[in-house]
C-alpha cells in the first residue's frame, strides 16, 4: 500500500515539476497514438461506411473479418511490422524500424479495424428508410453518404475513443517496432515496463497514473462532446 501512495506522490511531483523526461514521454505517447488514431479514422470510417452501405457477395465474411480485426493482438502486429521493416526485410529500404513513425504504422494497423468495425455497426443501425428519404430530397450520392456519417456521429465518437484507447494502452507493438529508445521512441507503456524491470516501482506507478489521467482526460473531452450532442 505504501508503495502505491509513494507512486501517486511521485506521479504528481513529476507532473507538476514538468519533469522534462516524463513530459517528453507523455507528449510522444499523445503524438504517436493521436496520429495513429487520426489515420485509422480516415481509413476506418471511409471503408467502414462503404462496406455498411453497399451490398455485395461475401459481405458477411468481410464484416466478420473486420470484427475479428477489432481484437487483433498488438504483439502479432508488432512482429509482422518488424519483419517487414527490418533493414533486410521487404520494406527495409525505408529505414524506419525503431522510429516513432514505425510505431504510428503499427498502431494504425491496430486501431483501423476497431474504428471500421464500430463504423459498420453504427451505419447499419441507422434506419434504412433514411437513405431513401435523403435521396428523395434531391441529395447527390456524396451528400447522402456525408449526411449519414453526420447522423451516425455519436457512435462514431465511440469509435474514436475505442481506437485511441486501444493504441495508447498498447505495448506489444510499440516495444517491438519502437525499441523503447530513451528520448526518442519511449512512450508511457514501454517506459512503465522498463521501470518495473529496473525495480523502480514508484516511477512505474507514477507513469501508469499519468497514462490513466491522460486516457481519462481525452475520453472526458470526447464524452462531453458526445453527450452534449445527444439527440433529443
Amino acid at each position, binding site marked *: 500500500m505504501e508503495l502505491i501512495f509513494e507512486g501517486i506522490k511521485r506521479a504528481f511531483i513529476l507532473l507538476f515539476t514538468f519533469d522534462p523526461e516524463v513530459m517528453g514521454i507523455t507528449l510522444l505517447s499523445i503524438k504517436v497514438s493521436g496520429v495513429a488514431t487520426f489515420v485509422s479514422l480516415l481509413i476506418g470510417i471511409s471503408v467502414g461506411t462503404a462496406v455498411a452501405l453497399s451490398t455485395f457477395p461475401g459481405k458477411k465474411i468481410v464484416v466478420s473479418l473486420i470484427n475479428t480485426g477489432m481484437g487483433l493482438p498488438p504483439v502479432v502486429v508488432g512482429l509482422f511490422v518488424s519483419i517487414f521493416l527490418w533493414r533486410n526485410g521487404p520494406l527495409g529500404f525505408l529505414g524506419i524500424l525503431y522510429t516513432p513513425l514505425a510505431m504510428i504504422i503499427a498502431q494504425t494497423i491496430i486501431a483501423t479495424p476497431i474504428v471500421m468495425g464500430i463504423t459498420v455497426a453504427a451505419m447499419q443501425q441507422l434506419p434504412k428508410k433514411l437513405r431513401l428519404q435523403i435521396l428523395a430530397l434531391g441529395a447527390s450520392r456524396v451528400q447522402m453518404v456525408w449526411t449519414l456519417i453526420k447522423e451516425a456521429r455519436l457512435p462514431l*465518437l465511440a469509435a474514436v475513443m475505442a481506437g485511441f484507447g486501444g493504441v495508447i494502452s498498447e505495448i506489444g507493438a510499440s516495444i517491438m517496432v519502437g525499441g523503447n*529508445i530513451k528520448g526518442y521512441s519511449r512512450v508511457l507503456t514501454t517506459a512503465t515496463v522498463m521501470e518495473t524491470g529496473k*525495480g523502480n516501482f514508484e516511477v512505474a506507478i507514477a507513469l501508469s497514473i499519468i497514462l490513466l489521467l491522460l486516457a481519462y482526460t481525452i475520453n472526458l473531452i470526447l464524452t462531453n462532446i458526445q453527450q452534449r450532442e445527444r439527440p433529443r
Partner: protein
Amino acid sequence: MKRITCTLALALVFLGFCVIPGFSAPPTEKNIILATTTSTQDTGLLDVLIPVFEKKTGHFVKTIAVGSGQAMTMGERGEADVLLVHSPEAEQKFVAADYGVNRKLVMHNDYVIVGPAADPAKIKGIKSAREAFKKIAASTSPFLSRGDNSGTHAKEKSIWKAANIKYEGEKWYQETGLGMGQTLNVASEKKAYTLTDRGTYLALKKNLGLEILAEGDAMLLNIYHVIEVNPSKWPKVNVPGAKAFADFMVSRETQAIIKTFGVEKFGAPLFFPDAGKKDEDLRK
C-alpha cells in the same frame, strides 16, 4: 455538429504542428543500432554512457535491450550494428562464423546465486556453484530460470550441465522468459532461487526479498564484450558508427565511468572495467 467539426479541425492542425518537427529522424548514417543485454539497461549503466557517447561523436544510438541470444540473432541478420553482450561461448561461435568482428573485452562482474533468506536448500556460504545447484535440485526447492537464451540463461545451463543434473521438465524448475529484473521480482515473490548478475541484483536489491547465498566460484564470472557486426555479410551495417561505439566502450574515459558507476548509489561498483585485458587474465 459544427462544434465537432471545429474540434476535429483544431485537433488536426495541432497534430500537424507537433508531428512534423518531431519525426524528422536524424540522418541514417548517424544512427547506430546497439543490441545489448537487459542487464546493461536495468542497471542504468547505458543511461550514463550513451549520452556521453552521443555528445562526443554526434552519433545517435538506438539501444535495443534484449537477451544476449536475441542480440546475437539480430547481429546475424544484420539488424544491429554493434553488440554489447555477455555470453562468451556463443560469442566465440558468432565471431567464428564471421558474423562479428573485433570482439573486445569491456568489463566484468560476477553471477551470484540468490534465494530466500530461509534458504531451504541450505546453500548459504557454499563456494562451488555446482554444489549449490546440486543441493537446490536435491531439495526440490523452486528455481527460476530466465529461459530466454540470454547470457545468464546460457551460464545457468552450463552450470546444470557441469553439475550433471537433469532439470528440464522438473516441477521445481520454472522458466520466466523475462529479463533479469523481472525474473528477480518473480523469484522474490515465489521465494525461489535464481542465478543473477550481481549488477542487476544490487540495483534492485531494495525491493527484493532475496539474499546472495552462493558466490565467488570462478565459474560464475560474467564477462561483457563489444562486437562489431561484420559488414561483409550485410552491407547496410553502419561500420564507422559501430567502430566508434566499440572504441568508445574501451576508451580510458568510459572505463573510468564504468569503474565508479553505482558506487555512490549502491555502495559498491556494479562492473569492473577490463579494456585491454584478455579473458584468461580474468579467470586467474
